[in-house]
């Protein structure tokens, strides 16, 4: 057999090993990405899954327990589906009304509850600021005397 052929076979074995590695790793490390509506209808179905779900933040629902480091809030979609989220961690940057929140974690046993491992925010216009007309130069003053969890939304 020509050595070039032998080398090609060796190459195929390595390539096969990599493909095998891919196949072995894919199901274990992946979860499902579903909409809020799908999740609300089938809470049991996704109980075992690692779920990614997006929703709009409802600002007045934010509850922050500093000592337990526990954040609770609601997200909703445009059709009125709601989800109550518990997250053992701090508020991410940019956590304001109507911002798109990307949640990853497990649906809880109770209907409409979600335990989020990670909470990320995504702004629809991520790299753009607000119009200056709405800008109130006083808005940041005296942030210190307000808890950080209440310091937004005085627009």
């Amino acid at each position, binding site marked *: 057999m020509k050595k070039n052929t032998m080398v090609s076979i*060796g190459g195929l074995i390595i390539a096969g090993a990599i493909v095998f*590695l891919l196949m072995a790793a894919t199901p274990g490390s992946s979860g499902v990405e579903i909409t809020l509506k799908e999740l609300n209808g089938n809470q049991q179905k996704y109980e075992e899954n690692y779920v990614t779900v997006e929703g709009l933040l409802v600002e007045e629902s934010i509850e922050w327990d500093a000592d337990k480091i526990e954040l609770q809030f609601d997200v909703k979609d445009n059709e009125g589906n709601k989800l109550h989220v518990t997250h053992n961690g701090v508020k991410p940057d940019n956590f304001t009304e109507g911002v798109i929140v990307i949640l990853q974690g497990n649906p809880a046993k109770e209907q409409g509850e979600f335990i989020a491992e990670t909470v990320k925010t995504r702004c629809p216009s991520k790299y753009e600021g607000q119009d200056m007309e709405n800008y109130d130069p006083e808005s940041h003053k005296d942030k210190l005397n307000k808890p950080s969890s209440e310091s937004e939304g005085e627009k």
Partner: protein
Amino acid sequence: MYLVGNLSIYIGLAISIFSLLIFIIGIYKQDQRFINSGKGGVLAAFICTAVASAILLYLLATEQFQFQYVHDYTSSELPLIYKLTAFWAGNSGSLLLWSLFLSMYTVMVVFSKKMKGNPMVPYIASIMLTNVIFFFFILGFVAKPFVLLDEVPIEGKGLNPMLQNPGMILHPVTLYLGYVGLAVPFAFAMAALILRNMDDFWIKMTRRWTILAWMFLSLGNILGGQWAYVELGWGGYWAWDPVENASFMPWLTATAFLHSVMIQERKNMLKVWNVSLIITSYALTLFGTFLVRSGVLTSVHAFADSNLGLYFLIFMAFAVLGGLYVLMSRYNLIKRDAGQFHSFLSKESSFLINNLLLVGAAFAVFWGTIFPLVSEAVRGTKVTVGIPYFNAVQSPILLSMLFVMAVCPLIAWQRSSAKNLRKNFLYPSIFAIIAMVLMVVIGVRKTWAVIGYGVIAFLLITHYLEFYRGVKARRKMTKENIPVALWRLMVRNRRRYGGYLVHLGIAFIAMGIIGSQNYDLETMKTVKLGESIEIKDYKIIYEKLDQRKEGINDIIYADLRIFQNGKPLGVMEPEKVFYGNWEQPSSEPAIVNSWKEDLYLVLSAWENDGRATFIVKINPMMNWLWLGSIILVIGTLFAVWSGKYGNITPRYSGSKREVS
């Protein structure tokens, strides 16, 4: 300004279409006059992008808020440097930057001294121009940088706080220089195939351009990671986000090409493979842009959604099909006179393994990135692929990669005998085993870490031996002292020793990655004033919470006094910054650096009574990652620097044409 800006784009579009046509006519008629006028067009197209860029910079610097782009991304309080860098904060500006670099590279190739009288020039120019035309088209009709608003606003919206960081100055520029740079090897490859010629000259030129693009791509990725590390308060530097993957994939395939082209150089083998790698790398840059600009994937990075992505997808399909067509139609010609392997244990075969691993790694990243789309199309559910997948797949591949890298200098070209292998491997293996035992003894016990550091120790010693033996051999003949001998040895073999330096850089980067991925610690705690947080051997006392003003930004900061094993390390101030017209604050972490580890402090939240919540992280060996990155860049520059010795560009020996 409005008129000149827009005109420069439309004139640029017209000129590049004209030059492309005239190049084609020139090639067809074999008439040098046409070609020369096409070259003039290339220069003119570059001038057009330069004028448009200069105007945009001027508008940004002088706060011309009647322009939408200026209004959307800047405000009057912004420091001048960030007003200027807002150039690439949005879609259309960043595409203008891309066009600027692309037309600049085209001019550099077409007017380069080395390319004088070379019949490849018209072909390369035509292919580059096709790209330039695409970008002019996008700038002229899809993402226009110069759009006037109906009324003149008094203020702009300001720049996203996350972009107000020194990282913003260099990261996008270097990344684009790398991305765009990969178009040049593609053009060279296509030109060579069309002319049915892949000689040493082609290899030399393509490799130089690929190395250049590769260096910028590496730098862009590293700077991006560094920026994320110091800015986001998340304490990481890489998250396998689709956007990051988009710039990692072409890096992997370009790395593979840089190695496999050496086999072609020596043995005239793997020509089809090499051209495929170039096409793939180039296509991946377009694919990456498609991912970033289209919003098909859930990414935290994404630009505002637009139909831009679609155009990139179409252009990519066009480029790939074109490339494959040219490759296939020349397949038989380049398949001829290929060399043969002489031995399994040779540098050639180790390079082959390296290539398979790199391409495999690129494929694994690709698979993980597009898997959500595939599963949605096939099964209807969007399956997410998380960081664990990427880590699980990439660690073994990249670790094997490191191992091949470590072994490579020990193996000779053509064939290695068992005897010389034993001689070469003995000391490095002993050294690596001792290092691994020592690690276990001092408490490094995680499997991945021990294997990883063992391989790195092996790599360091084999590379050290390369330098040592080279210097020793040289001193025998010249009697120079060690530094002189080392320096002369290196400058006389720039490619080889520059390559080794890059390997050392990668090894240090790997040290940082392995350390910070396996031994990071994190704690989150709410404390009252005067209370302390303890992590590892650190004690952090929370002393003060206060507010100060910087320009229009309000900053809340906490004073943390740090002790390590009772030894004071000073006061650190993590901050939350409320930027001008952004309601929400951004975290500015405080970092205590050392060669052993970083102590990473984030102020997360605070209450009325002065209680505050902190995230404290320990990220081991981060400095090694940054050090390795610097060595990598130095090594690359060292390798491509045209010194006195060697580095001669071979003469072009391909087919002759009337025109050049």
